[in-house]
């Protein structure tokens, strides 16, 4: 038997291809890094994280973490991160609630409710989130009336000065008490929740649709009411399909929260951009952003994997 020539030996070819790709990548990365080093030296910006301790000198419109302009850049970025986490946290809860309701409503026997749910999903999913956000902020929330003519909704008062939850009172023409959200935060949450919930509704609908029809009929013939059927029979089975889908929707929501910068809510990305403009530390800021967002994704994934284990049904 004659030896295979090397160009016909798939194992040798494989190594060759890998060596070529590896070498090519190395060369490109080395070139980029050497350019980076030259350019940074010329600009007098050595890669360090020391500047994080310097005073930031800019104000942040709203923070949960106590912050003032004389605090450090590191503190400013941390305040931005807390603002991001706040939006993501509230957004996850609200969009899940709305999404589950809308998803379940698409199985209603009432044609009006069904139609409403389908229309909502089809309209919202086909309009860019950023457009929805600027619409909510500029066209809705910024045009709210002053406090003495605040729009009254159950448990909610909307005025130029903010959105007030849980019983704010009018004192001297100003709303006092309750839980105040800034217009930026309120617009961001509204847009983000309505957008994400439409996708979650689709996930929920897919999950419920994956439960065989016989399960519904069996539960009905046992005398269970529709809501009880949903809660006791259908949802436990549907959750196995729903949870992985929710995982990727939650990650999308976390990433989409960075669009806050377009409507002036000081989330992590917005603070990072200001930091870049002041320090010129593009590389460090970018790496920081990547690490934080990838970390956030990872946390959500880990959390959802835990939930998945919880809802995993044991087949006898």
């Amino acid at each position, binding site marked *: 038997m004659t030896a295979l020539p090397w160009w016909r030996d798939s194992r040798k070819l494989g190594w060759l291809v890998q060596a070529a790709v590896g070498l090519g990548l190395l060369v490109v990365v080395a070139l980029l890094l050497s350019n980076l080093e030259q*350019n940074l030296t010329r600009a007098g910006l050595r890669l360090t994280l020391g500047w994080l301790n310097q005073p930031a000198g800019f104000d942040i419109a709203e923070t949960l973490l106590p912050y003032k302009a004389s605090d450090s850049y590191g503190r400013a970025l941390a305040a931005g991160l807390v603002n991001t986490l706040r939006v993501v946290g509230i957004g996850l809860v609200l969009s899940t609630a709305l999404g589950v309701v809308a998803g379940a409503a698409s199985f209603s026997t009432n044609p009006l409710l069904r139609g*409403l749910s389908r229309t909502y999903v089809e309209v919202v999913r086909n309009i860019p*989130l950023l*457009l929805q956000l*600027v619409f909510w902020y500029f066209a809705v929330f910024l045009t709210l009336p002053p406090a003495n003519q605040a729009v009254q909704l159950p448990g909610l008062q909307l005025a130029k000065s903010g959105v007030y939850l849980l019983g704010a009172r009018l004192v001297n023409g100003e709303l006092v008490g309750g839980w105040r959200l800034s217009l930026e935060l309120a617009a961001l949450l509204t847009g983000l929740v309505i957008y994400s919930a439409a996708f979650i509704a689709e996930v929920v609908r897919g999950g419920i649709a994956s439960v065989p029809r016989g399960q519904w009929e069996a539960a009905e013939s046992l005398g269970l009411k529709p809501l009880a059927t949903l809660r006791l029979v259908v949802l436990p089975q549907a959750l196995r399909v729903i949870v992985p889908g929710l995982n990727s929707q939650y990650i999308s929501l976390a990433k989409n929260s960075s669009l806050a910068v377009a409507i002036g809510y000081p989330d992590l990305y917005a603070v990072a951009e200001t930091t870049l403009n002041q320090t010129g530390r593009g*590389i460090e800021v*970018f790496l920081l952003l990547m690490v934080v*967002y990838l970390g956030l994704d990872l946390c959500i994934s880990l959390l959802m994997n835990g939930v998945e284990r919880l809802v995993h049904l044991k087949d006898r």
Partner: protein
Amino acid sequence: MSRLSLQRWRRQLFGSVPDTVLSLGLGALMAWAAWGFLHWAFGQAQWLVVRANAATLAIGRYPEAQEWRLWLLLGMLVSLTGLSWGLLRGRGGAAAPGWPLNDRIAAALLGLLTLGLPPLLAFGAINQGRLLCLLGLLLLLRTLAGRWGNHPWGQRLAKGWPLVWAGAYLLGLWLIGGGLGLTPVRPSDWGGLLFTLLITSLTLLLALPLGVLLALGRRSELPLLRWVSVAYIEVIRGAPLITLLFLGQNLVGFLLPGGLAPDRVWRAAAVLTGFAAAYGAEAVRGGLNAVPRGQLEASRSLGLSTAQTLALVVLPQALKVALPALVGQCIALLQDTTLLSIIGLFDLLGIARSVLANPDWLGRYAEVYLVLAVLYWGSCAALSLGSRALEQRLSSNNLRPSHR
């Protein structure tokens, strides 16, 4: 409506007390919302902002003296669409009806739009005349090509048709950008709908092959290729697009030899391409997973090389399965181009925001954004409808022998 279905509706809406309450409540809510909207749209809204800025929203700050090039481009696209439409319909030969119902509906809709939109948007008599000519051209070519479709000459033309479109695309890029004898128009002057469509299509065309390569890399048996692809796909998919655009706008200058940074538009397009490729790769991977192993083994045993196996056996099947997911990514990409407005480029949303920043149009947000929403919604909905139709066509092709 028959009496039976009327009864069914009544039962579904008012069958029980809770249902009746729900139906009445929802009905009242919808009526209230519809009334509120109509009241706003015909009473308070000032649509002048849209009429006065229609041209800006369409093409941004494209120089007026060069606008004829865009009309030429539109004429070319309309002609090609008319011919494609006709060739597609004429294929069935004598058995194919000249104008099926769908085509008649499409023609009627187009006619309605061409007749109705220009007066609404105050286009002027000349532009309206041009649009009417284009509509006439479209219908004429559609009719002619429909007749030729079964002619051997038409069939030969149909075979090379994708090449014609590719050529037209390049020609279109030249018409828009200029150079080679035409006055150059800088990318920063392309704007509005034109820019959005251009950058979406360009990104799509570049990202698809890249995505296929990444998907193949991710499934490769060579560990290095696999790791590199996985790392790239997962990192890109884990980061918000805006941070990647940030990289493109602020850091590319650092990574390239001094002073050599392409125009902001190209940098943004490169970032969008890399981003879309990572998502496209996942869609293609789903398709690749669906191709049975036997297909691969069969083609190897027929003596096809790895490249032939991929190009002739695996990819055609994988891409067909991946089509719905790919169209989904396409829709997402179209929506993602709005993020370019955050980094100061004038896509449709960016140009709208610059119009709204003009003190003349202060506070007319709702009107402009609503029109944009209708445009985006229409495009995305059309894409997903088209994908569903294409899916059906492809799956029915499986049943009868194609070619010959």
